[in-house]
């Protein structure tokens, strides 16, 4: 029966190894989250724009004009009015511009909102930079309060020549519950 106990030993070892693979793959599922973020950061593929404050460039490329369109969306339960003052703007790459959004809370209580920017086409996301934005922090509006929210941005002169239209889209999410949950 010597061979039998050998086989048992190796079964135990095999099962342990397979178990480790299972644990590792569970971890890999979670590892995909940072991998995804880093990958999208480098490539700008998912249209997420950086929420870091950019420094305005010195050069303005007056040889071409890019049309930037502004879009506003509210997430499901959000009872706000949210509109940009201008729908579109022609800018030279490198030129710094400010656009304001008009936001009003229609609810009878204070609401914390977080605006999430997105740029289309996705490949242009990394070239649309903001020096100031209401999306950098959470915005709290009291019942019925109205605010003008500015965003100051420029289009990086490095923008590939084939991109002539950009859309900057904001979605406001209600984070009141999330904010109170984390306390």
């Amino acid at each position, binding site marked *: 029966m010597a061979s039998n106990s050998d086989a048992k030993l190796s079964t135990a070892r095999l099962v342990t190894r397979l178990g480790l693979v*299972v644990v590792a*793959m*569970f971890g890999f599922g979670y590892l995909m989250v940072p991998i995804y973020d880093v990958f999208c950061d480098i490539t700008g593929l998912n249209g997420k724009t950086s929420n870091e404050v950019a420094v305005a460039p010195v050069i303005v490329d007056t040889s071409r004009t890019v049309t930037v369109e502004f879009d506003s969306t509210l997430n499901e339960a959000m009872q706000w009015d949210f509109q940009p003052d201008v729908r579109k703007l022609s800018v030279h790459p490198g030129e710094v511009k400010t656009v304001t959004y008009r936001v009003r809370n229609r609810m009878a209580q204070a609401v914390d909102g977080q605006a*999430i920017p997105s740029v289309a086409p996705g490949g242009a996301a990394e070239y649309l930079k903001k020096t100031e934005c209401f999306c950098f922090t959470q915005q709290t509006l009291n019942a019925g309060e109205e605010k003008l929210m500015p965003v100051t941005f420029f289009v990086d002169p490095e923008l590939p020549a084939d991109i002539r239209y950009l859309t900057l889209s904001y979605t406001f999410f209600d984070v009141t519950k999330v904010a109170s949950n984390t306390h």
Partner: protein
Amino acid sequence: MSEATTHDAHDHHDHGPAKGLMRWVTTTNHKDIGTLYLLFSLLMFFIGGAMAMVIRAELFEPGMQVVNPHFFNQMTTNHALIMIFGAVMPAFVGLANWLIPMMIGAPDMALPRMNNWSFWILPFAFTMMLSTIFMDGGAPAAGWTIYPPLVLQTGDAFPFMIFAIHMMGISSVMGAINVIATILNMRAPGMTLMKMPLFVWTWLITAYLLIAVMPVLAGAVTMLLTDKYFGTSFFTAAGGGDPVMYQHIFWFFGHPEVYILILPAFGIVSQIIPTFARKPLFGYSSMVYASASIAFLSFIVWAHHMFTVGMPVAGELFFMYATMLIAVPTGVKVFNWVSTMWKGSMTFETPMLFALGFVVLFTIGGFSGLMLAIAPSDFQYHDTYFVVAHFHYVLVTGAIFAIMGAAYYWLPKWTGHMYNETLGKWHFWLSTITVNILFFPQHFLGLAGMPRRIPDYSVQFAEFNMISSIGGFAFGLSQLLFAYIVISTIRGGAKATDKVWDGAEGLEWTLSSPPPYHSFSEAPEVK
């Protein structure tokens, strides 16, 4: 399968099964557990099938007729989850339990107690899953892919669904570890890897796929759970997450999963066709390598399920070409099956009919898959009935036809009784004709633009939907015949010989029919 038959002449002094209900609860015998898995799968097949009947009844005519839209969505979601995790996967695990030890000359599975556990988790998981239908807010209704943010709107059912999926995952991971340990450690002397029957090979590869991707699904649904209840933002854009990332993680599991659902079917067909063509399988080693290549490629094609999320052209091209590459090993397999039959002395008993039906109809599903793989045209087909037609051709006439072929092929071995050949043929022809009436028109509906997962449709789609529903009801009814044949074969019938089929090859046919409760306590010599 019943106590009476396993007690037949063959248990001399070695102990047979215990008596009564506790035999089934406490059993560690691979044949008992195989039987439990197969019967459970049959039950789930009818429950999932009943849900499909609700879907087809609602789609029989345009407009809202039978159920409300929310309930319709619950039906599509649960039909898929039950058919995938409750019917097809347990059926394959049941076949693995019954057949792998007998095919490799082992006395039992390597880990019999874990085997018992991995089965007995399932009834609890599915009871929990099905109980959500009666909960506040109804059962999950966001599709089997449970994409956020939609799935986060599920009512009380949400955590129950997540935990049910966890339990199904644990069950299949344990089953897979057991299969690998059995195949690698318990083969009879002389049974080298490249002598193993193809069913064993495809299951070995499937088991590796299972342990690689089921934990990823577990991770993805756990992220959904913490997003909903614990304030994390994996997929919530408000907190910096991205719902598209869920799709990437899900399909990293989901694409290997579809091969988990088909590779054992390839194995089954590769056992049946040589028997009835009376020729050895053509290109055995190329079959093994093709299966392994399909498994490898399954890890790098996931994003073809999400061509429309806004990928860059380079990504679409990569996933398109990688996907089309899978057609090569799959083509090798189809070629080998056809070559096995070439100049063979074929006969057409029911298992062979199902295997032939598989080869023809699965190939149709494969071709519509190739059409969907073409990224630019996928924008037109995405989320239409064309997709529904495609995956039902590969899963119903693919996986399920193979499972039914396997049931007819090995039922005489398992029970010691021959099934009724006339009824078996009736079942095959009824199924094959009705399944095509059911799913073939859905190709046209999809190409014409009918979206999937919607309870109502434009009147231009009325005729094809009515034809499809009629086919659906007829296909559903035909399966009652299958249940009748299986049950009556378990209960009695003409005595089956040990070899059952005169062209059959392999160790399982050297045992008596039915095989003794403990087989191969002394390992057979394989030359």
